[in-house]
């Protein structure tokens, strides 16, 4: 026996996983120190998708930030749009019309559904569950059709405006949404049957990536990953924005914070989001979708072409940009991955002095070494899937 052990390779091996690796959906590099298959040390390197978001924002007007926010979490861009718009509105002190709030809630929840579906689908795919992937991608396609109907684009939405929206809901939107949800629910239950009691899937995800609640809080976890640890923190409940306080929905929580709990939380949140959209469509009031403040929100094209005052306001807001009063605000919304915060500083000019984003997956990615030390190298795949690191958001 000792003769065999003598020739065994017992040194630690360092391998690079990434930056372009088939199972890490996101450009990230893991520097893994291995003892056999066990992870001794893990270093995460990010920044491959860094494009200077804040610097770009500081050199444009407040309106020109919107397209950049689409590209933060590009799976649920509408939530980023809404978060930024709400932060600027808080800075200015605008309250948008009721109808606008409801449409924003609908937009946010549709995005959340697409986000969670993508995450579960890709997570399943990377563990070999190709069928589940196809089902959820079909469902996501239908949700993206709705989003396309709403704003003309599927991913780069650029739909929300400061003090309003680009356009109102299109005709037949409610009918189409209800039809889509009917199909989504069928697909949801198919995926549920394929994964939730699937022995192979459970063996790969259960008790992997666990995190005690206390530690998750210290690491700055938010969103589904925190709720999987049993902490019922959801910005929509804790600091309700828009009309979330009027919606009846549950916040699902897990127990151990392992990858299976994160999966279950996301699956249930898809259902809850569909409930919210249905309620919002039911309660949707009439009225305008834009505030009547021509200094901040452009008036209709009809007015701009026919009225001199509207034309002047339009000209000023486009060329110089809107001018929020000097000050600073922080506003958080619940994105697909957790608390998405915007910290804005205005100096009273037409450009943001500072436009900071608090990316929810940034602290989650930072905790990868903590979750992975002592585990097997194969456990990186489901854990990294379930924290749902989005390069555009993490690296900005």
């Amino acid at each position, binding site marked *: 026996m000792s003769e065999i052990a003598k020739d065994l390779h017992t040194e630690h091996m360092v391998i690079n996983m990434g930056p372009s690796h088939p199972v890490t959906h996101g450009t990230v590099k893991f520097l893994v120190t291995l003892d056999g298959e066990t992870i001794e040390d893990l270093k995460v390197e*990010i920044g491959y998708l860094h494009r200077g978001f804040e610097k770009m924002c500081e050199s444009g007007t407040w309106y020109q930030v919107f397209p950049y926010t689409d590209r933060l979490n590009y799976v649920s861009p509408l939530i980023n749009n809404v978060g930024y718009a709400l932060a600027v509105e808080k800075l200015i002190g605008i309250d948008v019309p009721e109808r606008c709030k409801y449409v924003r809630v609908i937009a946010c929840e549709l995005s959340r559904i697409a986000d969670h579906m993508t995450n579960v689908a890709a997570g399943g795919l990377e563990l070999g569950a190709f069928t589940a992937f196809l089902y959820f991608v079909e469902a996501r396609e239908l949700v993206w059709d709705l989003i396309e109907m709403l704003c003309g684009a599927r991913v780069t939405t650029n739909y929300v405006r400061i003090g309003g929206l680009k356009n109102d809901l299109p005709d037949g939107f409610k009918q189409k949404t209800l039809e889509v949800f009917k199909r989504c629910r069928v697909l949801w239950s198919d995926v549920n049957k394929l994964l939730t009691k699937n022995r192979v899937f459970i063996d790969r995800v259960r008790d992997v990536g666990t995190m005690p609640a206390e530690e998750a809080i*210290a690491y*700055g976890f938010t969103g589904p990953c925190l709720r999987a640890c049993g902490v019922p923190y959801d910005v929509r409940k804790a600091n309700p924005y828009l009309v979330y306080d009027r919606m009846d929905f549950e916040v699902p929580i897990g127990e151990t914070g392992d990858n299976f709990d994160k999966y279950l939380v996301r699956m249930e949140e898809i259902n809850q989001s569909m409930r919210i959209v249905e309620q919002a469509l039911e309660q949707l009031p009439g009225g305008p979708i834009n505030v009547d403040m021509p200094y901040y929100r452009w008036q209709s094209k009809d007015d701009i072409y026919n009225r001199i005052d509207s034309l002047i306001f339009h000209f000023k807001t486009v060329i110089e940009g809107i001018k929020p009063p000097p000050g600073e605000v922080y506003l958080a919304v619940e994105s697909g991955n957790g608390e998405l*915060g915007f910290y804005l*500083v205005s100096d009273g000019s037409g450009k943001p*002095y500072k436009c*900071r984003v608090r990316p929810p997956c940034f602290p989650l990615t*930072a905790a990868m070494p903590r979750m992975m030390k002592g585990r097997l190298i194969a456990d990186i795949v489901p854990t990294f899937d379930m924290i749902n690191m989005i390069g555009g958001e993490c*690296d900005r």
Partner: protein
Amino acid sequence: MDASVTLQRLTERFGDSILETHSYRGDDTAVVKKEDIVALCTFLRDDGKLLYNFMMDLTAVDYLGREPRFEVVYHLYSLRYNRRVRIKAGVPESDCSIDSIVPVWIAADWFEREVFDLYGIAFNGHPDLRRLLLYEGFEGHPLRKDYPVKKRQPLIGPIN
């Protein structure tokens, strides 16, 4: 007056280190001396009436032409009381460093590295202060206001 409980408690306990407080748009804010940041954060986390257990965000702002030039901004959240507070600490360019709060909240680790990377503010006592988003060998700190927007520093070839 639930919102200002934090600011009251802070002023009672750290009266000398609080330079200014305000609640613009409902966001409780305290501007503090940078020397006391660790003691102050520990107090905010552990005090029974505050319990700020989340370090939500940490960033910096460059107020070029003002003294002190930089401000490190902390956003904290208390799950127990559902309150938020913003702590700001001025950092002058001549002594561009502040104590690290990683011992208080481990979440600060990457956030501090990012600020170090993009603003060049050093965090004393940080366990692993390296660039995070940009590569080793990048010159300058791009989020400083005097860094040109259009400056290019292409990285070609392997790092080592």
